[in-house]
């Protein structure tokens, strides 16, 4: 899976979680999306981990500055045995 494919799949998750449509780009981040608060974030991460079958390590999600970096993190975790 490359970054674009991951973002495409993330888009479907975001479409479910958020009522107002959000068009994901690598540069977009939580502060650009009004509905993306700390509460929604918890739910979003549960959905992403289930959808991709990955488990992030403690604290690493908050180090991703935008969707692009977040997608790269998903790829990195997916590549782990």
């Amino acid at each position, binding site marked *: 899976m490359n970054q674009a494919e991951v973002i495409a799949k993330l888009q479907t998750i975001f479409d479910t*979680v958020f009522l107002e449509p959000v068009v994901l780009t690598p540069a977009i981040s939580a502060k650009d999306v009004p509905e993306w608060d700390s*509460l929604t974030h918890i739910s979003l991460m*549960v959905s992403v981990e289930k959808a991709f079958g990955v488990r992030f390590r403690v604290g690493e999600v908050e180090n991703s500055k935008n969707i692009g970096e977040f997608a790269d993190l998903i790829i990195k975790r997916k590549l782990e045995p």
Partner: protein
Amino acid sequence: MDAGEIKKLLLSNDPEFWSCLKTLTGSARDFEELFLLSSLRKKAHARKLENPNVTAKKIRLAIVGGYSLYPLHELIEHLCEVDGLPVELWQGDYDNYISEIMDDDSELYTFTPHVVFILPAERRCTYTGHLTDPRELQQAEAQRAVDSILELARKVNEKTRAEVITTNFMLPARHDLGAFRSRTLGSDWSFRKWVNLELGLNAPSFLNICDWEFLANRLGGIAARDERSWFESKQPCSSALLVELAREAANLIAALKRAPKKVLVLDLDNTLWGGVLADDGLEGIELGDTSPRGEAFKAFQKYIASLKQRGVLLAVCSKNDLAKAQEPFQKHPEMVLRLDDIVSFKANWEPKSENIRAMAPELNLGLDSFVFVDDNPAEIEIVRQFAPEVTTILLGPDPSDYVTQLADCRLFEPRNITAEDAERTNQYRSDAQRKALEATVTDMASYLESLEMESVMSEFVPVDVPRLSQLINKSNQFNLTTHRRSEAEVIAVMNDKNFAGFSVRLKDRFGDHGLISIIIGEKVGDTMKIDTWLMSCRVLKRGVEKEVLNELARLAKLKNCTRLEGVYLPTSKNEMVRDFYGKMGFTLTAESETKREFELKLENFQPATTKIKIVRRAYEPS
């Protein structure tokens, strides 16, 4: 119905949104699913799309505790509101609950809550000393942990008169300490178990326990925890358990505001027994130990009987002819429920919704106290539509799940302790003392006496045929001749005047053993030949065999016989009864490798006395 459809309803400001939200919320199991529904609910409020069915005054709910209370508060608020009990929330700060409660001027008290939900910090419920410290020391610390929670609850209640709910503690789910874990009160495992028990047993009536230990156990100890979410955002447990915790809290809050259900209305065919009474007949319905399905239906009846014991009223609503429908309650030997267990019995061809409506004034109860159980979706639908106040339960396709469905329905849970309960407790105590006394009795006769055994002897009757044949074909050890017989052959014996067959049922104060012995005698001239004598080994040494011989002798005399003839046919499994006839006072008359023959002259026969009360004898009017 799914997330996409409900979003459309929301975006078109359709009030249908709310009933749809309720349905989806009821079935949502995953955290993210429930969370999404809650977000949609908040959006609906923001769009001024209001729920037409919510008119109740808001419950002022305060949540405090040793964890981050986000997003738990969100889930609780959602579940309460969707259930028709909207709440106004106040949350304490992370791990600030002790000062929030102890400080008289805290915001908690200016909020004037109706209900306060406390989640005491797990990490404070741990023994601080050494694992091998004296038990007294460990116990004293555990007691202090209990007392501190009770003290917080008392303080809240005194200040606010609010109902208080507190969680207890999850148990560890890791192997740490190994087998030593349960040998010391110093382990978190034992310490928390002790605290949970003491907390529950000593909770005053204003305090409700949200049993987190139970919830975690039900979900699975490992699935209950998520260490990462603790480090990242001080979450109390895994998101999966958070859903269950929120549901439990919402359930407890609803229970404070609503009366429990009082009446369980039961369908009959394929609900209380398998099959259709009108088609299969009294003998044909599946009920009791003859088949796995029959056992499942009987277990369901036993569970229903236990609800009755808790105070739930039982009623029947069936599409049947009344006399026919009542027959199993009067005549079927495997029925647990009897006519006098049923407070209202409606069997007719009117719609079930009308029948249940008629019950309400009869029992002087509101329709909202009724729960209706049926295996037929069409009947459930009629009641839903035409008696919507009634709660309905559609039983699934497998009767082995029936008990589970009722046991998880959460409609008949007892509330806090009343004075009446306390009185009953006293009665139980004196009962227990009496039983303890009995337990000290050591000789066999007193033991048998204390069992309070009762037996029913019955000629073969059609309704027993499946059980008779089944026991005849599976009984091996206590079986003198091992003559097998099909149901048709049992029926042939039943209808032949030369045969005297009877069955024996036994119950004692611990329960009903059911049909445990079968005897078939055949009159040949002046002799009663014992064709079959078998018994379940569960009731050995109770005196049943003596009563059977008494009965056999009585029947033989009635048929003008002067002697009994018994035969032992050895098999690989019935060695235990090789000398049975000898011990019962018979004389050995012939012996070979394949056969031992005995006789008993009846002229001098004296019936033996036992500790069994014979309630009914065979071939006599009951």
